[in-house]
């Protein structure tokens, strides 16, 4: 098995309280992986630790076999919709273009190539018509599509999505899933923080069950068992702690 992300002994704490404790897990290349666990389990924090957005207290993270270097842009991030200020003065195309900022480097403005990349990403998520719409006028589902388009414009190898299906309607969920499956078909790695246990087996190949510690991980057939779910959600109460703020 080739690994996209390898995590060893990862501990993240916020004001002395562990949010993630002693995580050992690995996520395979070219698969759809779900990160599942109750509120406060540290799911978002795990993504942010991989991306270098929060600094771990301890542990090693390797991305495609090497320590993670953000500027290599091989990992694209789709944050939770609610974390952003949608009143910000920008259009749909502006946001999609942000995905190309990494390849541009300092002092360079997006040009024709970047525009084409962003337009293609918008087309992939079905937002071509809305390219010039202010983001403040988008519905929840459209907001989620823009964020996915921005990640696509980054042309990364690994895509980390934080609850992309949260609060979107069924057609949007289906459309997003189509894009994610298309990514998988391109041998890209897709990792999703997911809430809906009923769709895990249908959507995903691999699962990480998380509750501050890593409860289980592996192919759906092996790891996504009632016994493991009980251990993740029930069994032992884990005090919910606040997620750490970004550094």
């Amino acid at each position, binding site marked *: 098995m080739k690994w996209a992300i390898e995590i060893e002994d990862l501990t993240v704490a916020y004001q002395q309280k562990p949010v993630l404790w002693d995580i050992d897990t690995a996520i395979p290349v070219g698969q759809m992986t779900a990160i599942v666990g109750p509120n406060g389990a540290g799911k978002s924090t795990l993504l*942010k630790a991989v991306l270098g*957005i929060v600094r771990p207290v301890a542990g090693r993270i390797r991305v495609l076999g090497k320590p993670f270097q953000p500027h290599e842009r091989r990992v694209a991030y789709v944050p939770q919709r609610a974390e952003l200020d949608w009143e910000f003065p*920008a*259009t749909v195309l502006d946001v999609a273009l*942000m995905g190309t900022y990494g390849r541009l480097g300092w002092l360079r403005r997006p040009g024709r190539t970047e525009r084409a990349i962003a337009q293609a990403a918008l087309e992939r998520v079905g937002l071509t018509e809305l390219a010039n719409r202010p983001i403040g006028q988008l519905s929840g589902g459209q907001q989620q599509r823009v964020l996915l388009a921005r990640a696509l414009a980054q042309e990364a190898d690994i895509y980390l999505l934080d609850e992309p299906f949260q609060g979107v309607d069924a057609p949007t969920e289906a459309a997003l899933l189509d894009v994610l499956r298309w990514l998988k078909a391109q041998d890209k790695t897709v990792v999703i923080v997911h809430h809906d246990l009923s769709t895990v087996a249908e959507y995903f190949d691999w699962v990480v069950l998380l509750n501050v510690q890593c409860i289980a991980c592996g192919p759906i057939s092996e790891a996504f068992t009632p016994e493991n779910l009980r251990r993740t959600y029930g069994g032992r109460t884990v005090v919910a702690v606040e997620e750490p703020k970004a550094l």
Partner: protein
Amino acid sequence: MDFTLRVVMTGAALLGLISGALGTLAVLRRQGLIGDAVSHAALPGIVLAFLISGSKAPVVLQLGAAVSGTLALLWVQTILRTTRIRFDAALGMALAVFFGIGVVLLSLAQHTAGAAQAGLDRFLFGQAATLLRADLMVMAIVGVTTFFLVVALWKEVKLVLFDADYARALGLPVRRLEMLLIVLLVVAIVIGLQTVGVVLMSAVLIAPGAAARQWSKRYGQVFLLAGFFGLLSGATGAWLSSLAPRLPTGPIIVLLLSFLATLSLFVAPERGLLWQYRKRKKAARNAQQAVLTVLRELERRHPHEARPHPAASIQTLLGPEVPVNAILRQLERHGQVQHEPGRGWRLADRNPEATHESRS
């Protein structure tokens, strides 16, 4: 126009331009309060700089302002790191403590140094008449420098303002960029203090950005427009305050800006309150028409028995977003539909004969 007035107006315009554009950075991050805390916290620095150096030179006093404003911000960051006090509360604390110390120092200076401090209290409410050509040079240099910085870091700053986490994931030095933004904000405040004063400076930072945001959906346009609003209010305010002796400039500039911001809040297209009110009115009218159309259609399907129809059937057709029940009650008040408790709704038959004929 005499020379002094020209200097004063140019200075106030430059200051409005710089603070308006740079304040937009804070407005778009929803951190306008930072400006308020820093400008109030500048007061003790100004007075101390005077007490220690004995000089009234603007550069000396501005340096003092910058130092104590920055100290206040560092204190806020320490509070945030070491306690569970929230950002706004920490800013409020810093503002109150620093400003309080500043006022105490100011009255001490009044007693000890006598008339020499006469120039200091202008920092409370601002006095543009004290601007000199040398001050204009400082403003112009600062203005040009910040302009080039903001242009050079255009897309990085934009990304940090909109989504700092994503910027971090792309490998941008977000912390340093955020620090740069704060430094720019402090600079804008410091050069504005002499003209506007510590009490109202934050309004000059926030109001232009808030007004400009109403008029445009584009980041760049919001910047330019905020700068323009600042420039306009600065120049006009300085001119107005020159008309009468001892009229403080700060409050006049701020009044003009507040007027602009309030106006923008009401009349701007799409985001303005009037526009939204009209849009809601129109949506309400459309919804009423839709409900009436459905009722008419229901009655057409049962032409021979004039029975009422449940609201739920209308709701099903129009979808869950339409507040069908509220609309029906509204229409009832207008006499267009009638309610039969327990059975449902029907069109009001003011003239049953006519309705009947039109059907057949």
